[in-house]
């Protein structure tokens, strides 16, 4: 399976390179950036880069980019979403000559990236999130993001095969659309295996609260959940606590299998190397900045962790089959008829919401089968 993942990203990498060289017809960037084959890239993280989670996923990709010829990579971690990030970006530009900056936290974009981008029109700002809009935001800014709910759907399929109590647990930070989408995808994946499965959610209230996360994981296991996953910045505590309680666990953000080798089923991981490479190639060749790029499993923005021993052969086969369908573009996660957990119809029968649909970005409901 790691073979297929590799081939996907390699295929995508080639696509990106070809696309990049095709559009390298003298854009406004070519003068500023195509001078020589050198590029200074800045990566900014909101938390510690070795958190086994969100920031580590970015730092792992940054480490790949650093190895590319001609690249000078700058990194700064624990940068707050205040004037601190504005000044970090400026400092990378002014003092270290950064030409492309990856501010990786969602909260960096408005107002911080927008403000600094207006001041430095010759520098590219590639923000991780989904916020860039044509005609509203400047051309030297852009968004990249991944449909990681596909990974959570696959987590759900694995959980559906592994769960004996038919109860799953989800430790979430805040009830925002991105998180709700993951909870829903996870639940729907599991219910595609067995419609009697339910997911219970606990919101801790913030992105990094280790004691609360441990307490939430324990409470979920107490209530009978036997497979857990999460959407917090660092899943380390949830993974370890679940494993200690004898529950199984699906990873998120990065690969946490080393933390709980026996309990780990699989995991939804970012593969930021793909968009990073696209954006770096464009900047190096002088092509216009790709302002709005996103993708899922198929495009190589997302990957899954290797299967753990706790997932049966049948379960592995089922997850792999679902994954193949996704890679072939033959599976739509959010399609009608779909009811939320209050009985309202949220997607009418016959309607299929593709991953690119903006309606999904404003999700404010939890699907039937979710308790919380």
């Amino acid at each position, binding site marked *: 399976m790691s073979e297929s993942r590799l081939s996907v990203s390699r295929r995508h990498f080639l696509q990106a390179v070809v696309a990049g060289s095709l559009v390298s017809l003298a854009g406004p960037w070519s003068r500023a950036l195509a001078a020589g084959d050198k590029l200074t890239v800045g990566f900014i993280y909101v938390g510690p880069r070795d958190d086994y989670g969100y920031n580590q996923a970015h730092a792992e990709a940054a480490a790949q980019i650093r190895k590319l010829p001609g690249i000078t990579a700058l990194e700064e971690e624990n940068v707050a979403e205040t004037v601190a990030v504005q000044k970090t970006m400026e400092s990378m530009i002014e003092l270290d000559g950064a030409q492309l900056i990856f501010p990786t936290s969602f909260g960096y974009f408005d107002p911080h990236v927008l403000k600094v981008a207006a001041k430095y029109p010759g520098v590219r700002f590639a923000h991780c999130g989904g916020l860039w809009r044509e005609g509203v935001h400047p051309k030297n800014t852009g968004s990249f993001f991944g449909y990681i709910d596909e990974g959570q759907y696959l987590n759900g399929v694995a959980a559906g095969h592994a769960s004996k109590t038919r109860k799953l647990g989800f430790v979430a930070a805040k009830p925002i659309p991105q998180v709700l989408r993951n909870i829903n995808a996870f639940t729907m994946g599991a219910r595609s295996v067995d419609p009697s499965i339910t997911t219970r959610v*606990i919101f801790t209230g913030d992105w990094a609260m280790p004691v609360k996360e441990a307490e939430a994981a*324990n409470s979920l296991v*107490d209530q009978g959940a036997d497979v857990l996953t999460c959407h917090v910045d660092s899943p380390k505590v949830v993974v370890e606590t679940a494993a200690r309680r004898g529950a199984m666990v699906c990873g998120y953000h990065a690969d946490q299998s080393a933390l709980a080798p026996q309990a780990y089923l699989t995991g939804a991981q970012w593969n930021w190397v793909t968009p990073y490479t696209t954006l770096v190639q464009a900047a190096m060749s002088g092509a216009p900045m790709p302002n709005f790029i996103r993708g899922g499993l198929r495009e190589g923005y997302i990957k899954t962790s290797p299967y753990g021993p706790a997932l049966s052969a049948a379960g592995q086969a089922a997850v792999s089959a679902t994954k193949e369908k996704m890679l072939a573009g033959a599976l739509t996660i959010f399609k009608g008829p779909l009811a939320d957990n209050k009985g309202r119809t949220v997607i009418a029968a016959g309607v299929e919401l593709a991953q690119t649909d903006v309606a999904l970005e404003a999700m404010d409901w939890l699907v039937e089968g979710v308790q919380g």
Partner: protein
Amino acid sequence: MSADVDLWAVPLAVFAGAIRAGSPFLFVSLGECLTERGGRINLGLEGALVMGAMSAYGGAVLSGSPWLGLLAAIVAGGLLGLLHGLICSLPRVNDIAVGIGLMLLGIGLAFFLGKPFIQPRAPGLPAFELGAWSSNPLVREALRINVLFPLGLAACALMHLALTRTRWGLALRCVGDSQDTARALGLPILRLRLSATALGGALAGIGGASLSLFYPGSWNEGLSSGQGLMAVALVVFARWQPWRCLYAALLFGGAGALGPALQAAGVTGAYHLFNAAPYVLTLALMAFASERTGAPGELRLSR
């Protein structure tokens, strides 16, 4: 709420949470209690706690033994406590201010030195499976008592005995109640206070170790949510009595577990406010418990 909700699991979860999440509160409030019985407040126990958590984890990673990690936490916390006592012995130095400074320093050092330990896994401290007799996994988990908790009970008993039955304890209380009297009696004020603040720091270090080596059992920069600062409030709560520190710590641990447990049982919404419940409770108790008995006379708190 749906039918399969186990509401009766809530009290059990709160009980388990009280012990799990209450252990750091217990040690750090005992540390603060001892410090304050000597007439000093140490807000810097937060720094000692975080430093203890980091030293314990780092020590366990490097040595492979959680017990050596615990020892490292005791030493680190004790040193920070001792430093507090030494600085406060200079004339006209405010103990609360020194505490804030030590908190900054302790946290800064812990984050600086703790970077290489965020990733590795450390061997955790063992637990007593007191619930092995039960077939109910909930009961088994609730009675899975970490090894530090009985140690905390022993520390409560020892501190109680030391403060009421030993020469050292009586002398320390005398120093804490009236420095003038202590001086008139010829007591070694400085040495008594140094021993109390150093021991207090060591206890806070154990509290940190219980965070990093038992629950949640991991080292990172967001590990402490201010347990060391809350200790000062807990001790007021506990009226400077070691045994009451135990009750206060259990109450705080339990209150912290209440929010997630209620959500798991299907009571959702306003979780931010639930999370703040312990603070509101403390403030209310401090404001409306009118009698101020038990406060050491030299304490800045009571003036």
